[in-house]
């Protein structure tokens, strides 16, 4: 495959698409599929066959505002229809070229206007199983440019210049990591894509892998060229069967087009990717545990150093980045590091994809420039809290993050600002809670999660989270004392300071942040035996359900 051949494919696809008068794009991501998008697409295809106009019906990845799904977008008119079902197919076909179908019209301008789409630029525009669709939107151009015009050092320099930081949560500068692996000694190196999105309440990586799998593969191939690797692994959760099948198809197509394999683009560069399935262990999102899992062992972390950049998979230098990080690479190479650097806030560059869920009107995927205020995300893009309830907190960073209260919503989103507020950026889950959520119960939920997901290797995490769960359970069922609260705070710092890996070190965050901002709720539970949200069942204090946990 050469650049000329790539351009020819893009040209052919465009010519092919020009034969059609209209394009009807149907979102078939998990959320829309669960509401009958499959039947809808079949009905549209059938209606399009009998109609007079030439219409292309295309399956696409996630369009964003999932709570309005199933979604359909008609191009070139750029009409977005919401809550569409199979019975609307005829009406949509009839409306082409005239007024839109009134009952399906959406008013989501505010939702889209504040978003900037880099990672999600193709979401809703391409069929994820067709490599040609991706190529027609400048896909693989960055890879071939890199291979023919840039040195590996030049690529690392461009990524460093962009200011991109790891999107998996830690925010380590990507260029710096690439540079370290590139400089590491040895001929055999690996690149790994961390698609083990274990954070409950987050699904950005799933949407990217399912909706635009080639973008991830292209990013990995560029990374491999930059660091001198010839073998890659994508580690995906087994809970995401669609992502696995889309990636498998994408890899096969990329190999068939000569974009993976030996002598890519007639250069000496060889690269191929294998998929590895996770098996439901949150700790495998931690890089050393992930390595153990790829090697076919129990996913227990190891102390660092040595970092995977010097000794990773089978002891070889290994580059591990998150799905979203790789998804940012191709646009950075195409548009230049400066372009990316100019987006975002002072120390957090570019955009971030968030999975906006919970008690909010417009749930779904949003991509916003770094530095945007939380209030803008929640009230303008998210449409605020529905059903007359009031906003209480937004949880970011999953089990490693914290809850941010209403009076801090005017802070701009960045790695440092979130850390300062006692939360973390995390992979991008953003769960909105209203007055019907009890913050003590939320803390207990996350600690229960960390307790069951603790791998058991180090004692602070294994025993600490279990004891924290017992204390929080006591507070929730009304039998807690103020001494329990003091003990809980003490345990938080022990677990945080003494745990081996990120899971344990950040496990107390949900407790610490709720204690910081919602301490009065804890005190109400203990002193007044009252849960203001009505979630905790205080009668349990007298019953025999005692949740003692022995570590």
């Amino acid at each position, binding site marked *: 495959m050469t650049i000329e051949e790539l351009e020819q494919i893009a040209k052919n696809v465009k010519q092919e698409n020009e034969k059609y008068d209209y394009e009807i794009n149907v979102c078939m991501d*998990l*959320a829309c*599929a*669960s*509401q009958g998008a499959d039947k809808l697409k079949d009905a549209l295809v059938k209606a399009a066959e009998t109609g007079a106009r030439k219409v292309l019906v295309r399956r696409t990845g996630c369009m964003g505002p*999932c*709570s309005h*799904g199933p979604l359909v977008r008609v191009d070139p008119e750029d009409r977005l229809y919401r809550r569409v079902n199979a019975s609307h197919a005829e009406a949509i076909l009839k409306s082409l070229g005239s007024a839109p179908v009134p009952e399906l019209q959406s008013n989501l301008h505010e939702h889209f206007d504040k978003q900037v789409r880099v990672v999600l630029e193709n979401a809703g525009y391409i069929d994820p199983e067709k490599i040609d669709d991706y190529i027609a939107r400048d896909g693989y151009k960055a890879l071939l440019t890199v291979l023919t015009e840039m040195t590996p050092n030049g690529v690392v320099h461009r990524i460093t210049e962009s200011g991109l930081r790891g999107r998996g949560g830690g925010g380590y500068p990507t260029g710096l990591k690439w540079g370290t692996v590139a400089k590491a000694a040895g001929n055999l190196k690996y690149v790994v894509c961390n698609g083990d*999105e*274990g*954070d*409950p*309440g*987050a*699904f950005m990586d*799933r949407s990217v892998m399912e909706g635009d799998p080639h973008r991830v593969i292209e990013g990995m191939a560029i990374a491999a060229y930059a660091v001198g690797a010839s073998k890659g692994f994508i580690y995906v959760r*087994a*809970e*995401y069967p669609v992502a696995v099948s889309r990636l498998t198809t994408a890899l096969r197509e990329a190999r068939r087009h000569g974009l993976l394999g030996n002598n890519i683009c007639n250069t000496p560069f060889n690269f191929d990717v294998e998929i*590895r*399935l*996770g*098996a*439901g*262990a*949150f700790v495998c999102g931690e890089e050393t545990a992930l390595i153990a*899992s*790829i*090697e*076919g*062992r*129990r*996913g227990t972390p190891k102390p660092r150093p040595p970092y995977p950049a010097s000794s990773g998979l089978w002891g070889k230098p290994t580059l591990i980045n998150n799905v979203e990080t790789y998804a940012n690479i191709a646009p950075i190479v195409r548009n230049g590091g400066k372009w990316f650097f100019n987006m975002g806030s002072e120390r957090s560059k570019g955009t971030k994809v968030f*999975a*906006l*869920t*919970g*008690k909010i009107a417009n*749930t*779904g*995927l949003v991509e916003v420039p770094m530095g945007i205020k939380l209030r803008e995300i929640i009230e303008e893009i998210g449409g605020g809290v529905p059903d007359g309830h009031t906003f209480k907190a937004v*949880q970011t960073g*999953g089990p490693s993050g914290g809850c941010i209260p209403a009076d801090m919503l005017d802070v701009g989103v960045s790695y440092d600002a979130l850390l300062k507020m006692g939360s973390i950026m995390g992979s991008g*889950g953003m*769960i909105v*809670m209203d007055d019907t*959520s009890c913050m003590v119960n*939320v803390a207990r*939920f*996350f600690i229960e*999660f960390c307790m069951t*997901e603790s*791998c058991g290797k180090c004692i602070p995490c294994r025993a600490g989270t279990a004891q924290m769960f017992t204390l929080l359970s006591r507070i929730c069922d009304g039998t807690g004392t103020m001494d329990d609260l003091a003990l809980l705070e003490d345990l938080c710092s022990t677990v945080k300071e003494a745990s081996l890996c990120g899971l344990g070190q950040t496990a107390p965050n949900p407790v610490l942040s709720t204690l910081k901002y919602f301490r009065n709720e804890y005190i109400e539970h203990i002193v007044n035996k009252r849960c203001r949200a009505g979630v905790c069942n205080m009668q349990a204090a007298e019953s025999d359900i005692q949740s003692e946990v022995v570590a």
Partner: protein
Amino acid sequence: MPVIAPPPLPSDDKRWKIVNGTMRKNGFARHALIEALHTVQSSFGYLDDDSIRFVALSLHVPLSQAYGVATFYHYFTLKPPGKHTLTVCAGTACYIKGADKLIAAAEKRLCIKQGQTTPDGQVSLMVARCVGACSRAPVALCDGEVAGEFTEKQMLEQLERWKAE
């Protein structure tokens, strides 16, 4: 290095050939352990002692390591599943939208705890750690089929249908 002959297939069951195929594709390398166990589970529905032993011997992995891996990862199950499986997602978004109430109602209706199967082998009740359909929470999987904005009424009706079979 002496070549150790691979163990014979445990039975004539054609599914063992699928398992063997996965291991062969990975060159019977030790690191294919998790992949091989995935294939066993997708073919047989669960992992039993015979299958773990067969995979371990084929890949030259100590039995302890194979059993350790099979029990470490939540996705693997050592018990045969029921005819139907209801999996309620208990991710954060689903929890905020009341998944715990769904689980409690299902436990009460089926008279079993989460992770168990009804004595007649008809229904298994599972809890997932997030299936990634958070925007339509609460979510459940009825025999693998995703159902968004799942209500208690819908769930109980589904359980009745399965029970009646």
